[in-house]
């Protein structure tokens, strides 16, 4: 009886662990003392932070990163929100200092045009080849 229970627990635990894998675990770098009292302002700060690259880790947003510079920038963004600056002004403040690279989503500009348009061109080429190939096989 004891053994059966043990086995059941083991299986149950394994299933739970397996299920957990399907849920993304959101880890945030935001410390409790950074959070603004005004919920609306805090939400704005979070939205901006999610779009700002952590220059040290490079593939993380400053919202997720615990790097000291990411924390400094999060606090800076919150201070600017409290000062009444709008989102554009805050983004401009950051790109003026760190360049467009600090934005996780590259802006649509002349020198990023290839980045935005090439995937569609490749898609069209791909579609063309698939249809071309299918046409050929129909003959047989």
């Amino acid at each position: 009886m004891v053994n059966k229970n043990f086995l059941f627990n083991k299986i149950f635990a394994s299933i739970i662990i397996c299920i957990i894998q399907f849920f993304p675990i959101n880890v945030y770098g935001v410390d409790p003392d950074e959070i603004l009292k005004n919920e609306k302002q805090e939400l704005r700060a979070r939205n901006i932070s999610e779009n700002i690259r952590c220059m040290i880790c490079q593939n993380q947003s400053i919202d997720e990163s615990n790097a000291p510079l990411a924390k400094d920038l999060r606090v800076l963004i919150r201070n600017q929100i409290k000062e009444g600056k709008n989102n554009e002004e805050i983004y401009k403040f950051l790109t003026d200092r760190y360049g467009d690279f600090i934005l996780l989503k590259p802006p649509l500009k002349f020198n990023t045009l290839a980045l935005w348009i090439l995937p569609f061109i490749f898609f069209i080429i791909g579609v063309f080849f698939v249809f071309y190939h299918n046409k050929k096989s129909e003959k047989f």
Partner: protein
Amino acid sequence: MKKQLLIIPLIFFLSILLIFFYLLIIDRNPSELPSALLNKKVPKFETMSLLEEEKFISSKVFGNKIQLVNFFATWCKPCRDEHDYIKRFSNEEGIDVIGVNYKDNEQKVLAWLKELGNPYSNIAIDKNGRIAIDWGVYGIPETFIINSKGIIKYRHVGPITQKIYKKINLIINEIE
């Protein structure tokens, strides 16, 4: 005609390979980013000076001659590694080197400079890292070349090595 078309993906694939190979062999550090401040004026700031009684006022310090600005801290190991080169810039090349001390302790800096030697003509104290943000600094040590009009001409991220030392000297000679 149809058979000839099939060669397109192959050419395409080979050209991609060629691009990758080119990026692999050229001398390039992908983690090093160009500064957004290149060819712009030095950011304005005022702070305490570590070496002098007077305040450090950027508009008074920059814009008279070619200068190097070096962001450093005593807790940063690569800063210690590059310190010999910073000294060579000021002693051998006679370049005015301004230090910005990043998130550090004044007593520790003074002891550090006593131990390793002081190449800096003036040191701005950046206690909370706010000045560094205005300069777009993301990983110290970082070194900037400023021309005689107070305009940023070059930025190097990371410690100065023999190669970078030569490169910076070359750039300084060019802008002179």
